[in-house]
C-alpha cells in the first residue's frame, strides 16, 4: 500500500508544478510526468490493459500539445485574473473539497470492491460465465466487445466525430477567400 501513496504524491506534486509554472513547455512536460505516474499506478492496481493504453495515449498527447506551443513566440502571459475572482474561486473549491472528504467516508474501504460484493452483481456474472459464453481468456476484452458492445460503438462514434471536427477546423483557406480577406 505504501507504493500507492508514493505514486499519488508524485502525481500531485507534478500537477501543482504544471499548474503554477509560467513557462508553457515545462508545464507540458509535467503533464507527461502525470501520465507516466498514472500508468505505473494502473500497473500496480492490476489493470494491464489500461496501463498499456495510458502510456501510449500520453505520448501522443504530448506530441500534440508540444506542436501547439513550440513555435508560438508570444506565450508568456503574466498574472492571473482580477484578485476578487481568484479569492472567491479558491474559497468555493476549498468548500467542495471538504464536503467531498466527508462523502468519501461513506464509501467502502480501499481494497474491498464497491460494486461486486453482492452475489448477483454484474461483475460476478462476467467473471464466472465469461469464458464459457464468449471463449475469450481476457475478460476485459469480452466485456467491451461482447457483453457491452454498444458502449464500444458509442466510443467509436465519439472518436470519429471529434477527429472530423479537428480536421475541418484545421483546413487551409481556399484561394478565392484569400483574395477578399474577411475583416
Amino acid at each position: 500500500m505504501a507504493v500507492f501513496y508514493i505514486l499519488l504524491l508524485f502525481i500531485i506534486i507534478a500537477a501543482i508544478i504544471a499548474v503554477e509554472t509560467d513557462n508553457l513547455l515545462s508545464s507540458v512536460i509535467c503533464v507527461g510526468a502525470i501520465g507516466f505516474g498514472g500508468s505505473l499506478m494502473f500497473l500496480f492496481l492490476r489493470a494491464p490493459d489500461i496501463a498499456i493504453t495510458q502510456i501510449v495515449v500520453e505520448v501522443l498527447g504530448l506530441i500534440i500539445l508540444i506542436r501547439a506551443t513550440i513555435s508560438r513566440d508570444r506565450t508568456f502571459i503574466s498574472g492571473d485574473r482580477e484578485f476578487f475572482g481568484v479569492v472567491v474561486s479558491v474559497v468555493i473549491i476549498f468548500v467542495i473539497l471538504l464536503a467531498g472528504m466527508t462523502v468519501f467516508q461513506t464509501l467502502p474501504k480501499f481494497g474491498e470492491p464497491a460494486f461486486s460484493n453482492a452475489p448477483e452483481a454484474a461483475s460476478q456474472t462476467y467473471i464466472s460465465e465469461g469464458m464459457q459464453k464468449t471463449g475469450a481468456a481476457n475478460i476485459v476484452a469480452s466485456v467491451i466487445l461482447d457483453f457491452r458492445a454498444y458502449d464500444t460503438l458509442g466510443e467509436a462514434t465519439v472518436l470519429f466525430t471529434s477527429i472530423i471536427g479537428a480536421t475541418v477546423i484545421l483546413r487551409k483557406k481556399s484561394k478565392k477567400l484569400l483574395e477578399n480577406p474577411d475583416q
Partner: protein
Amino acid sequence: MEQKQQNSKTIQNEGTSNGVKGMTIIVKTISSWVKVLIFLFGIYIILFGHLTPGGGFAGGVILASSYVLLMLAFGRELAEENLSLPVASKLDCVGALLFAGVALCGLLFGTASFFWNFIHQKYLTGTEYEFNLVSAGTIPLSNIAIGLKVGASLFLVVLALSIFRPDTPNGQKE
C-alpha cells in the same frame, strides 16, 4: 527517383532539430529500423487481444505512433508520400464500416440480436478451440476493425496539425 534524392538532400541540409524538416542522420538511421518493430508490435497486440492484455484500442494507438515517428524523423513530405491525407481518412471509414458490418451480421440469424457473437455460439463452439488464436468468435474481427479505425484517426489528426501553415494575424500567408 531523382526527385526523391533531391528532396532528401534538401531535407538533410535544412537544419538539425526543426520538427517539420527532419532530423539528423543518427535519428534517421535508428528510426528507420525501429518503426518497423513498433508496427509489428502494434499488430501483435491487436491480434492477440482476446488472450493477453491489450486489445484494439492500445494496438491502434501504437500503429498510429509508428507513423508519427516516421513523420517526426523524416519530415512531413516523406510521411505524406507514404500515407497521404485522403488515404488515411478512407482507411478510417473502412474500419468503422467493418465494425458496423460485423455487428449487423448477427441480425441474419433467426432469433439473434445486434452484436451477437454468432461464430462462437453456432459454428466454432466446443472446448477444443479455447486458448488458441482462432477462438472467441467475432472478438478478433472486432479488434482488427477497432485497431484500424483508431490508428488511422489519430495519424490523420497529427498530420492535419502539422500541415497547417501559420498565417499572420491579418490573414496573409507567410
